[in-house]
């Protein structure tokens, strides 16, 4: 089995020390950091996402894999910076105003980082203006919003409306998700995309970046 496949496999098992050691070995073998990232770490995380979607993996499995992913990332980060490997793009995420449910949003953040995105996580109970201000200042192309309560969903609409009123919808896309949120709701409020789970959010955001 190739070294990169081993990295992917150990990552799927959530074995952080093994992933870090294998990543160091790959660096010593002069593999490029981009190759290690794309074909080892991200490839592994993509499989984790698929297994999560098919209920073969559950939240703890995904989060342990993510920790292993970060352990590998820490090894190659200095090289990525040195080689000026661009990130997949910047994403601002948060749970909307009035909502404190964090798990889904955290999972999206972890999966996005695992897929090579720069993520600015604003936490929970985020006021609409803060999403936009942060995205504008950071040059983020996507705002991801999560809500777990029907009563807090309207805050998503406020963010989309605010973006529109500031003429920013061409530069900053929005994606919404969370248990009570649906494709129909996303369409109704004018969000750019809807995602039904964390790994789907990564796919959708990838599409929005292009």
């Amino acid at each position: 089995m190739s070294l990169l496949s081993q990295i992917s496999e150990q990552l799927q098992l959530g074995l952080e020390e093994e992933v870090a050691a294998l990543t160091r070995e790959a660096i010593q073998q002069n593999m490029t950091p981009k190759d290690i990232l794309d074909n080892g770490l991200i490839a592994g995380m993509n499989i984790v996402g698929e297994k999560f979607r098919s209920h073969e993996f559950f939240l703890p499995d995904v989060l342990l894999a993510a920790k292993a992913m970060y352990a590998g990332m820490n090894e190659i980060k200095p090289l990525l910076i040195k080689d000026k490997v661009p990130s997949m793009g910047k994403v601002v995420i948060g749970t909307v105003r009035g909502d404190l449910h964090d798990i889904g949003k955290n999972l999206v953040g972890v999966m996005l980082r695992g897929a090579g995105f720069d993520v600015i996580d604003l936490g929970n109970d985020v006021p609409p203006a803060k999403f936009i201000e942060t995205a504008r200042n950071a040059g983020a192309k996507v705002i991801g919003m999560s809500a777990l309560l029907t009563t807090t969903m309207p805050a998503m609409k406020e963010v989309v409306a605010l973006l529109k009123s500031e003429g920013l919808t061409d530069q900053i896309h929005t994606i919404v998700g969370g248990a009570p949120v649906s494709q129909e709701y996303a369409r109704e409020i004018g969000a750019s995309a809807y995602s039904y789970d964390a790994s789907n959010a990564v796919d959708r955001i990838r599409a929005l970046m292009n």
Partner: protein
Amino acid sequence: MREQIQIAVQDILPDPAPVFALQGYPPNVHPDARALGIFKSAMGLLLGLARPVAVWMDITAEEFQSIYEGEGDNAPATPLERIYPQAEHFVLFAATLNEPVCDEIKALFANDDFALGAMLDSLASVAADLMGGRIEEHYLRTASSSPGPNSNGLMRYSPGYCGWHISAQKALFRRLRPEGIGITLRESYLMQPLKSISGVMLCGRPEIHRFRPDYPFCSECCTKSCVDRIKKMKKGRPPEVRSD
């Protein structure tokens, strides 16, 4: 009557099932040994860090009416607006696990310990709900206005759910003053520390709490937790966990 009570952490330790349900496990899936190990570690953290404390107070029907109306943002029709006029006793409550648990969850995420952080988060959410049951028991044991320990006509309702707008927290806080036990209200009406609960306990005949969940907002409700709560009340057992 107004009373502050300390709750023993041992009395709010959750079973694995509702915690794993919050983690997204379907009921027929048994967590593997690794997931159960994380659950056990999170339980250890909860035991060491949680400082559960609660406050409750009796209020009048008139006082509750103005708290219910809050900032005037409730849904046009709600189950609670039909229930509360038939209630005999109105008890405001608030409880918190306190800040160290919330700080630990943040610290675990900051240190990339996502699985343990998320598990502690779920565990703390269930434990926070369980505090409600302990307040009910305490109230039924001690309050002079209580309908007696055998009553099963007591149910908790909280702003932010089932059409009762979360902005009613403002009026609830004004009356109950849970700042004394360390709970404050954010501008968005969410409580700080996050792992806190608040609301009203309504006592009366069990029938008053029964309703059909066919309000417009029910179509978007994922938990339908009222169905279980009403079912449990029919059986004469107080509802324990509300996972919405």
